[in-house]
């Protein structure tokens, strides 16, 4: 199943990001956005892992969400 996933650097001696991009593109993974230390990609989780192979210093993480700050009480249901 296609989903958004983050591929990101975790060590100082990680492989150059150009190599990560090359492997992902070769596997037909869609790169949504690229930053120096991370890439937002769209594709099947296993396919992304396979494309990266044993590349040094990069890992795959799911996209997560932090809720907006709530500083007020809220009614959740009517009486």
């Amino acid at each position, binding site marked *: 199943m296609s989903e958004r996933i983050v591929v*990101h650097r975790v060590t100082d001696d990680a492989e150059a990001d150009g190599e990560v991009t090359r492997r992902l593109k070769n596997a037909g993974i869609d790169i949504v956005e690229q930053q120096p230390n*991370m890439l937002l990609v769209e594709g099947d989780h296993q396919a992304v892992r396979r494309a990266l192979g044993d590349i040094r210093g990069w890992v795959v993480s799911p996209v*997560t969400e932090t809720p*907006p700050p709530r500083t*007020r009480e809220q*009614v959740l249901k*009517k009486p």
Partner: protein
Amino acid sequence: MATKPQTHRYVIMPKDGFEHPALKDALLAPIARPVTLKARAEGVSTPEMRVIDSIDDRGPKLVETTSEGELSLRLSNPELKLVPEVFYYRLWYRPVLKERQVVVRRGVKSRTKVGGRVKVAVKAAAIAAGTTITVVDAKNGKPLRGAHVVAFTDYVNRAGDQGDSGANGVVSLRSISARQRLERVYIYAPPGYWDQYKADTTATALKTVKLRAIDLEDPTLLLHQLYGGLPANAGEGVVVGVIDSGVDGHHPNLPNVAGGLNCVGDELRTDPGAATEWGPAKTEGEHGTHVAGIIGAQSGNEQGFHGVAPGVTLRSYRVFPNDGGGASNFDIARAIDAATREGCDLLNMSLGGGPADDLTKAAIDRAIAAGVVVIAAAGNDGRQPVSYPAAFAECVSVSAMGRKKSFPTDSIGTSDIAKPTGGQNGQDFIADFSNIGSQIDCTGAGVEIVSTLPDGGHGAMSGTSMATPAVTGFAAYLLGVNPAVKELAGADRSRKLKELLYASCKPEGFGRDYEGFGLPL
């Protein structure tokens, strides 16, 4: 009779890796008798520690000590970390039979037999529809637009009604009758006024709510009490990144906002020009401006209000989108990376509630390796475990405290007063909403804190979101007056500043899991 402090087991290990020369210290050799540790502050008892086991000469040690002992060890061994001993269990699923609870409710009951079981339907008694409350200025009786009233008939289940006042000051609550009992009513004020709180009342009894204007120069405001004595240039030369909902750089008290970045990917990918939209998000965007004001608002000529460290330079990294949604880990990591690259010394993260996440942690690790200190809010879930990212050991995790009489007795802050109490004369308390736990490093002023709001306004807000920037502001002050620390580079700088911050904390007597090292003063 004094009770003996409870002991816990911890693993002492290097901050990075598995072995460290500091672990070879004679104090950490496994012996049967307890050893005495240094008291971490004046007036604090001298803790004891027992070294139970060691994996290797220079490797991790299993020790038993009190919470005071843990804090003492952390302060005297900044290159080491203490992790509570944890246990893992087999992942068996063993169903537990629960006794069926019988709930008695008022209302009309009907019984139906379904498949041998009796289903009880409860039909709520009909409630008369609609009532109104009028919100006015206490001094001149003028109606106030923009008050938000939240009235709970059943607080535990968050049942009730809510509404906003219009130009005539009237708030319509359509689901509540005039004489219906209201367990709790929260009246969130428009900018410039104190909010108000009522318990066990009715709309009839409330009828007209009179809100008092905030005096920005009131010396009893908590930030003024705690940090009013700091110099007007406190934090000079220090850059603080505010990772939040955006900051209003046009506010008269925030001329020190030097720029920032909109980090919301969904907005940037649609319009790359949106990168400069680091101001308040269009929905619920006031949070970041309030946070920024606590850190470093400057007194204008007309308005005496100022934050903890008015000398700082602020930068805004907006991660909450305009549509009011949550912040993705990709955008938070982008913000941390950008703020680090752009020279921020401190990062304020008054956000949390997402899961533990490798991406955010990797970005925080990079920031720390570059010499940055990351300060994060413990969360507002009411004594629940510390939320992420504050729960990462690498962050300075902040709980929220308040002080009685630093806000009006009928304000919402009254509902946040809870045990434990501490400080001078027991006037201080850890807010009812604050999360707590072993990851708490310090506490900060977080109840009814007056600060800046977008469009030139001011108002009071409560939360660990407010406690965190109070601590960040004080850390900025410390960095500003310690040039030797500022000149350090990399993780050493980050570590040294954290040590300074922790050493400045005064224990308030709340207990380790509530306040960590205490309140920075």
